[in-house]
């Protein structure tokens, strides 16, 4: 074993957190965010929505069950760094094929272990959005670049991918999709076409889908402003489901606004209320932006879900068109699957509509 080297996370607000370096040997800059999930570190580090972010795990013991070949949400982790408490280098699980620290190294992601992550979380909370610099030296000033990177571009597929199946055909617009969304569609027998985030309406039209799913993804949704009209057009023509960033994009496309949350919702324990039934579902969430309540045109959209704690919008439904969006992750992984029915309902909805269309033809 190599000798442990000290590592430092320097926040733009001046605080420095010390630990030991793990993973890739390189410095890194990113927005420092935290996730409260107690399981699912593998899914989290491979979730493309974290692109460009340094993720802090609230749960202090990470790596217990190693890394397996099944639970990756994307092929290459896109996050900028990882901050954890106690690193487990002796994982135990029948599926484990790798250590957490090795996975980081392989993926070129640097990290720091041995950090009081609770203190870091409290710091982030008191500072709001905060960037940090992860490095082997303490003296680095956390310099913030002028412009944000356009992360969706980096994580979205460059070419169209097809998954054959005998069910309805769904186009999955990839803003940084999680593999679990694809899996959920495939499990429902959908044929899936994954298209780059910037695929215009005409192209999608040519694919002749039964429905379109706008995926999750990293960053500020307003960065995608120039595609809003296309997104609107797509959703007007096909049954559409928006998840997370996809939800925000649809809201924006119809004229709503988004804003940054003070420190985001990231974890697997977020209660949302289904307004129709009054029932509360526990959801997996990972978002830093939220649709502004007052900006919703009540004549066009109905709010379907609200966060129980901060009352923020968690879901929308178009009043006339088959468009539904959710801020949380019905595909789970990691997190609870209380709302997996949303994906199922979407598929059965397009399946029945597809039959109707077919019948007319």
């Amino acid at each position: 074993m190599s000798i442990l080297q000290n590592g430092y996370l320097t926040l733009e607000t001046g605080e420095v957190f010390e630990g030991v370096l793990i993973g890739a040997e390189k410095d890194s800059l990113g927005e420092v965010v935290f996730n409260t999930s107690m399981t699912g570190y593998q899914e989290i580090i491979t979730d493309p929505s974290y692109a460009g972010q340094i993720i802090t795990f609230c749960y202090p013991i990470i790596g217990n069950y190693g890394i397996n070949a099944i639970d990756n949400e994307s092929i290459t982790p896109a996050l900028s760094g990882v901050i954890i408490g106690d690193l487990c280098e002796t994982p135990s699980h029948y599926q484990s094929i790798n250590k957490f620290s090795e996975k980081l190294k392989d993926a070129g992601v640097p990290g720091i272990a041995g950090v009081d992550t609770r203190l870091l979380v409290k710091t982030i909370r008191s500072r709001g959005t905060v960037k940090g610099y992860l490095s082997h030296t303490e003296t680095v000033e956390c310099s913030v670049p002028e412009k944000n990177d356009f992360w969706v571009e980096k994580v979205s597929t460059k070419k169209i991918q097809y998954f054959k199946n005998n069910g309805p055909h769904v186009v999955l617009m990839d803003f940084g999709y999680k593999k679990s969304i694809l899996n959920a569609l495939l499990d429902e027998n959908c044929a899936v076409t994954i298209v780059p985030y910037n695929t215009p309406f005409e192209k999608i039209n040519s694919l002749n889908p039964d429905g379109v799913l706008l995926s999750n993804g990293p960053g500020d949704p307003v960065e995608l402003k120039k595609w809003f009209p296309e997104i609107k057009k797509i959703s007007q023509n096909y049954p559409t489901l928006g998840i997370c960033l996809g939800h925000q994009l649809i809201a924006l496309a119809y004229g709503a606004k988004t804003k940054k949350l003070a420190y985001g919702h990231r974890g697997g324990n977020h209660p949302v209320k289904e307004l129709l039934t009054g029932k509360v579902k526990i959801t997996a969430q990972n978002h830093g932006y939220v649709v502004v309540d007052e900006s919703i045109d009540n004549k066009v959209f109905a709010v379907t879900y609200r966060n129980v704690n901060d009352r923020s919008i968690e879901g929308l439904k178009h009043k006339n068109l088959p468009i539904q969006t959710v801020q949380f992750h019905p595909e789970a992984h990691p997190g609870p699957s209380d709302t997996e029915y949303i994906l199922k309902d979407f598929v059965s909805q397009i399946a029945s509509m597809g039959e109707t269309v077919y019948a007319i033809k």
Partner: protein
Amino acid sequence: MPLNKTLKKVLVIGSGPIVIGQAAEFDYAGTQACIALKEEGIEVVLINNNPATIMTDEAVADKVYIEPLNVETIEKIIKKEKPDGVIGTLGGQTGLNLTVELYEQKILQKYNVELLGTSVESIKNGEDREKFRNLMLKIGEPIPESAIIHSFEEGVSFVKKIGFPVIIRPAYTLGGDGGGFAYNDEELEMVLKKGLAASPIQQVLVERSIKGWKEIEYEVMRDANDTCIIVCNMENMDPVGVHTGDSIVVAPSQTLTDVQYQMLRDSSIKVIKELKIIGGCNIQFALHPASNQYYIIEVNPRVSRSSALASKATGYPIARMAAKCAIGYHLDEIVNPITGNTFASFEPAIDYIVVKLPRFPFDKFPEADRTLGTQMKATGEVMAIDRTFEGALNKAIRSMEMNVYGLCLKANEFVEEKNLLELLTQGNDQRLFIIAESFRRGFSLEKVQQLTEIDPWFLHKISSIVTLETELASYNWSDVPVSLLKQAKRNNIADKLLSQIYAIPEKQVRNKWKELNWKPGYKMVDTCSAEFDAVTPYYYSTWHGFDEVEVNHKKKILVIGSGPIRIGQGIEFDYCSVHAAQAIKKKGYEAVVINNNPETVSTDYSVADRLYFEPLAAEDVLHVIEKENVDGVLIQFGGQTAINIAHELEEEGVKILGTTVENVDRLEDRKEFYQLLEDLNIPHIEGQTVTQPEELIKAAAALGYPVLVRPSYVIGGQSMFTIFSEAELNQYIVQLEKNSQATMWPLLVDKYLPGLECEIDVICDGENILVPGIFEHIEKAGVHSGDSISVFPPLSLTESLKETLIDYAWKIAHSAPVIGIMNIQFVIYQDQVNVLEVNPRSSRTVPIMSKVTGIPMIEWATRVQLGESLNDLSSKKGLMEEPNYFSVKSPVFSSSKLKGVDHVLGPEMKSTGEALGMGITYQEALEKLIPTLGGQTDENYLFCSIADRDKKASLPIIQELVKKQYKIVATEGTAVYFQDHEIPVEKVVQNDDDVINLFRNQSMKAVINIPNQGRNKIKFGFQIREHAVRYKVPVFTHLDTIEAIINLEKGPQSDFEVRSVNEYYKLEERGAVHG
């Protein structure tokens, strides 16, 4: 849906006396529920006959019935109180069973009482084996295949169907005796035949064996709107095969991937929805270690020990929320009290790890079968919180108060390898330390894993602690590197262990940390991993991070809690700790509480102003004292726990309130204490302190047999024996040297006087004393006060004797002086009052005496320690006037749970709990406690086996019983003696087979077995008593007990009246006899 407004009055059913498997967690649950109901303006009527509880306080429930927990009594209460609703899912299995009975006997329907929360149908679906099975099949959730089998052939054909391995559990045997696993045909033949033979009804349960699978628990909540949440999941370190109450448990699960976590979460939610539970529910799973296959092992459709643990582990108050759900609220309408700004409909996220260790009673029962299996044996538990498993485990170990501070134990170094292997395979209470010893000897992790079937994750951690301990031991204190010490503290290695390793005083270790400016940080338990601001002052320490806890500069008083529940130090001390905290608050100070027992009310964050969930070792207590800068420490309310560390606290300059540490010593040290009594001219039992075996033998001879022998500084009569001859004494010495540590010496040896025993609790301010009452013991001296039936007011004390008791108490209190509270035990022999012992602290009888007299004893005892005088508190002093009603306390034993333990009455305490009966007459009060010998039937057999020395004394009692048409069966010697004295003996029992046949074929009313010595497994008497326990026949091991019951049989079978505690008080005011 908001609160159901039609509910004005609700009956809450408590769980009764503490037994193994049903302990203080139900006082915590019940108390929370009562408060949750009261704050909605609902009048709460409570029934519970466990007087040592907080829930039976008038401040918690509006009307408290300390009455027997049976359907007849509850019906009387319902008839009288006319409640609108009843909650029965917060009183453990007792409460649940009673609720079902009340419903099935249509009592609830008859009086129009709504069953709140989970319905009876749901309860039965969860509890009834067949119904549960069918329900799970319906929703496609897997349960282990099983069948009830009555014959060998039936069993073989069933196993053919389901395949190996299987477990065979005989019906009605003690602690699963006679059962076992079968992995192939030969084993099946052997175990099945043995099992069928072992069961008195030739019935076994054959079930697919999932031994060795991971055992995972989920705590689930559901409201009437079908919103379901998981409060917490937990992973048992000990795989399936060891009862979860006896397992080492961590929260949250550590070795499950998110897929597995969510798979079991989904299953939990499916189950709770199908069962339509309203409130809390515990679901236990077995998860295959090498696949995602799982089985549901068990569902508890009620709050449980695990839910208390989950509540303390996360901060989410399950019982409180369950009560709110039961009266109509939905989870999203209830504010999460921890954050104050989020709602109960969420799942706690925690950013620390919790380790629970079970506390076993084997230190008191060296003869017990220590093997762990499916029958729970632990009496209590400790919980520890840290940011690493290693840290939490080390904290938990020192919380146990077993005189153990690390994993490598000297005693285990001498265990032969063969035994080591056995102990790894078939675990007992020492398993954790045995695993450590195996690693110390260089066993490979794979080997240990194979033998224990414990997940390697845990074994790696244990092994790393062993490595660290070994490395620490390879240095001297003078040359141990600071970096290594730092690593030790980050792993929360005890200061005490370091002091033992380096053979230096613990103070020197502490001083080193001061030099280095090292101290732990404190963090908050906030249900949300710091995602939201939390308002609840519930803290734990860690050496892994920053101290985030801000302190204020108010005046603060610290209450040291009593730690895990064990025999001799039970829930009563939690009652005292809670009341002390309340008194402190009332006086305008901030109450700081430290404790480590997750079952209790004292560790409810709403009790103290600031709660520290920490070990009660000097190191941890001192850190909190320094952190909070407390103005004084109360040590009299946490049992012996706080007394034991008082010296170290004082040495560090901590202000101990009340009786000084020096005076505590004077009262506890036998020699000094006798000197004090002699100076005060108070008679005491003749006795000596001896430091070695020869001295002991000499002293015993000089005093004259029988003698009472015990170690000093003990609680609950640990290793205490009445010894009748020198031969017995020699045997005792051999046993003592085999079983215990060097700290047992010096021993105290006293002359044994078979007199009347009584005890008082005294509140003193140094000048005056106040004694609420005198408890008289029914059994003669020689039976531990915790195990004797006692009555208040006393039956046979003359006024002058009472005056003498009070005079002696005053003299002791005044001369010491005692400030606060003390307990004095007396033995009155031939009209002379002798002082047996003084406990310079609160005692087991305090909650009872407080409750039956209405005197707030702990509040007053706290206030005198804070400087008030008794004159300010009470116009009356000395012995209070006796009430005109009676209160009788009787011990409750967990005999059926502890195989190998001889529950014979003696000087060592064995009961786990107690019940209280109140009545206008002694007879009525006693009747509420003791089952009479039952109605007369054709076969009223009594089995008698009586030691020679008691044979004569037993004659009038037996004659009386014969007069009442009881038929006598006796062992040989007893039979001969009876026949010589013209007592007809129906049958003479010669050997074990006779006993078995007897129990199997005759309806036995009771066993009267007065042993010579007891606690000797090879003795015939031991076998008799164990058979009696197995066949659930009452055993009486003391003539005084049976005599009290015969007197009861003489009286008319009265249909007693139920009265709330308040009504008893009013009786007194009116001076009326009949209310």
